[in-house]
């Protein structure tokens, strides 16, 4: 079930009503059943994978906690990680590895005839696998006691608001909330609905609108010139944000209506002044996951300088692979790692003088330049992220730098006007949130202003939202 489907509009209020009507001790049953129903709306049989991942991590965590031998603990953890990642590998990466081996061996005139698998990627498998694996590691490290209640644990892995596209929650934050009794709270419900409303705007009005142009151009990259490809890349820069952040807002909002606090996943990422800051604002739940379970496991930055850079590169390489089974994602992640390494090198060897620091903190022009540079670098990497193949990506990059013409607009000028209006509205709101958080319309002290802004937002969504044909980009992850 998609958040932007009419089914969800019926499902969510029904779940909420039942949730608050039920005695607290039965609520987990409702949420668990609802979450599996939500998931099974896609390909029902894939719920078995979700269940399998739940069972493995649940029993492994109990075993890890009970065992006193370090080597046995490690072995059980290893079993949990290997079995979870094997499922992920089989469904997500098998064809990619198979094709890559085929390509590699063909270069040496060698044959490789293992057929590809004709299976669909289970929705959200990367998200729930990481959430469950994170739980196992937390228990292994002794940061968390294992959850004894299988039903509650199963709910932690499958909780419908964040099941298919995050935020990837930490057990320490979410598990205890399933044991709490949440009475209906007016302010929490209103806050949740506001987040959902904004999420729907980002998804339906911004992302899905822009995706029409981006798809038309990127799927025929050879037919367009550099200006069109540049415009599509800038659109994709906004689209991916609208898509993913919009989905996160809906997830966080719907959980909040029921009383649950999920972690914020985006924090005006396009106002970041460096790539490092961008990653502290973009997909926060994933970047902190990689920080805690990959980067720190390798020693983080408490190692010699060159080793620290290596750790960064590996972390971003793995992050790239997590995002998709394609060399484009590998290169995308690597590029972000390289940017960070370059930034660290420049900080260490070039811009150490305090005059630069003073300039950076005091000059608004300098800060604006930093923001623009960061956006441009990030947008450049999005080419790799969106392109269908590596050769497409290189073609697009070369065309952007070598050919120019009037951008392709298609036969609908109104489409462009709606797109630009949507982007403008998104960035005005983001700008206000970043620099003037006290004047937000949704939080205005005057009730008339608040009601007007809610109504206006609903009208904008109904009138300019794209309701058909949209799939969340992150579903391929």
């Amino acid at each position, binding site marked *: 079930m998609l958040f932007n489907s009419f089914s969800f509009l019926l499902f969510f209020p029904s779940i909420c009503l039942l949730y608050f009507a039920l005695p607290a001790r039965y609520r987990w049953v409702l949420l668990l059943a609802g979450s599996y129903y939500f998931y099974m709306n896609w390909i029902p049989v894939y719920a078995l994978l979700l269940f399998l991942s739940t069972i493995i991590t649940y029993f492994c965590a109990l075993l890890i906690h009970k065992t006193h031998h370090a080597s046995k603990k490690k072995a059980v953890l290893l079993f949990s990680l290997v079995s979870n990642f094997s499922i992920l590998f089989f469904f997500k990466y098998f064809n990619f590895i198979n094709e890559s081996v085929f390509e590699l061996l063909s270069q040496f005139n060698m044959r490789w005839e293992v057929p590809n698998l004709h299976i669909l990627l289970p929705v959200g498998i990367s998200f729930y696998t990481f959430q469950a694996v994170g739980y196992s590691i937390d228990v292994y490290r002794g940061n968390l006691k294992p959850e004894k209640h299988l039903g509650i644990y199963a709910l932690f892995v499958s909780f419908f608001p964040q099941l298919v596209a995050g935020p990837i929650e930490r057990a320490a934050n979410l598990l205890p909330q399933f044991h709490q009794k949440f009475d*209906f709270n*007016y302010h929490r419900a209103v806050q949740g609905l506001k987040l959902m409303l904004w999420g729907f705007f980002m998804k339906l009005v911004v992302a899905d609108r822009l995706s029409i142009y981006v798809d038309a151009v990127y799927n025929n990259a050879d037919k367009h010139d550099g200006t069109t490809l540049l415009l599509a890349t800038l659109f994709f820069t906004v689209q991916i944000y609208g898509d993913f952040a919009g989905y996160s807002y809906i997830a966080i909002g719907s959980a909040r209506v029921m009383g649950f606090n999920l972690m914020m996943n985006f924090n005006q990422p396009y106002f970041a002044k460096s790539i490092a800051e961008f990653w502290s604002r973009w997909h926060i739940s994933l970047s902190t996951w990689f920080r805690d379970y990959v980067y720190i496991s390798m020693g983080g930055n408490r190692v010699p300088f060159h080793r620290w850079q290596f750790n960064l590169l590996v972390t971003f390489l793995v992050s790239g692979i997590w995002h998709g089974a394609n060399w484009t994602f590998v290169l995308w992640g690597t590029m972000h790692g390289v940017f960070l390494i370059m930034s660290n090198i420049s900080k260490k060897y070039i811009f150490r003088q305090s005059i630069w620091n003073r300039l950076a903190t005091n000059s608004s022009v300098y800060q604006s330049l930093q923001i623009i540079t960061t956006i441009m670098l990030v947008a450049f990497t999005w080419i790799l992220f969106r392109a269908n193949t590596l050769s497409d990506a290189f073609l697009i990059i070369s065309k952007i730098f070598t050919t120019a013409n009037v951008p392709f607009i298609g036969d609908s000028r109104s489409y462009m006007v*709606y797109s630009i209006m949507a982007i403008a509205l998104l960035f005005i709101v983001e700008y206000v949130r970043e620099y003037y958080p006290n004047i937000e319309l949704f939080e205005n002290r005057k009730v008339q202003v608040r009601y007007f802004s809610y*109504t206006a937002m609903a*009208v904008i969504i109904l*009138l300019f939202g*794209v309701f*058909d*044909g949209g799939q969340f980009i992150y579903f391929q992850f």
Partner: protein
Amino acid sequence: MKHQLNKFLKKLALMLSLVFATDFGIGNLLEHFYFRMGPSAPEYNTTYALNKAEEDILVFGSSRAQHHYDPTPFEENLNKTFYNTGQDGQGILYSYVVLKSILQRSQKPRIILLDLNPNEFHAHQDDYDRLSELLPYYHSNKAVKEVVDLKSNFEYLKAQSYLYRYNSLPLTIIMHNLSLEEDNTEKGFEPIPDQVWTEELQTYTEEEQIDSTEVRLFKNFLEAAQKANCEVYVIISPSYRKYSQETLSIQLAEEICEDLGVNMLDYNQDAHFLKNRSLFVDPTHLNEDGAEIYSKIIASKLTAANIKLITGLH
């Protein structure tokens, strides 16, 4: 908790009332101006086809119909009035709605040309999504409702919103009420001038998953037209791509036409057009010159058939 819930429900009711009132107010305004749009608007063709078209010869189909059937040769050769109801991005679902709407009126067409795509019945969600174009007529036209409801289980509920029915249309409505756009059509036909396809002929294959609803509506279309005593032709217009074999859609269409005794003319792989890419703008659409040549061919074919019909020669 009860107090908080009551407060929430009251405010939610107020909020929803505001949204419904705005939906009604702005929606009515949009509706009013939507039906005042001039012929320059693509939507005008739909309004005309659904509510007014009563010409002798009517063309149905997708963008290929809209860009391929020039009225002049038909009007001159057959001495009959002509209108092209073809619409960009649409297919048999749309054609069925238009025909049903036209047949509900007293004046029936005499000749119906239904242009089919070579992969007409290939199942594709876009075919249903694009029916959104018919939403402004949802509450005033039974045939529209019947087909638009196929989009999803909840379309009936969604269509209660005025704003949803006029989704993405405000700017179009403004531009075409202020006559800011030119009318490039002639009796529904929209020629594509000054563009020529330059790429080589390529072989095209697409694995087809047949949409049984589309096949059923195709059959219903033909039966309804025959019942209204219309002379029906199912035509596949030329493509500039080589099909290695006859598509499943064409095979099905042939079978149904044969069963019902409907004429079928297949120009998809016509040698004259396959040899001449300068008549195309892309592999599936003829340009203005191509449309003129093709329309003359079809018009003369119909003239010959009409003479046979009148004189009893077979």
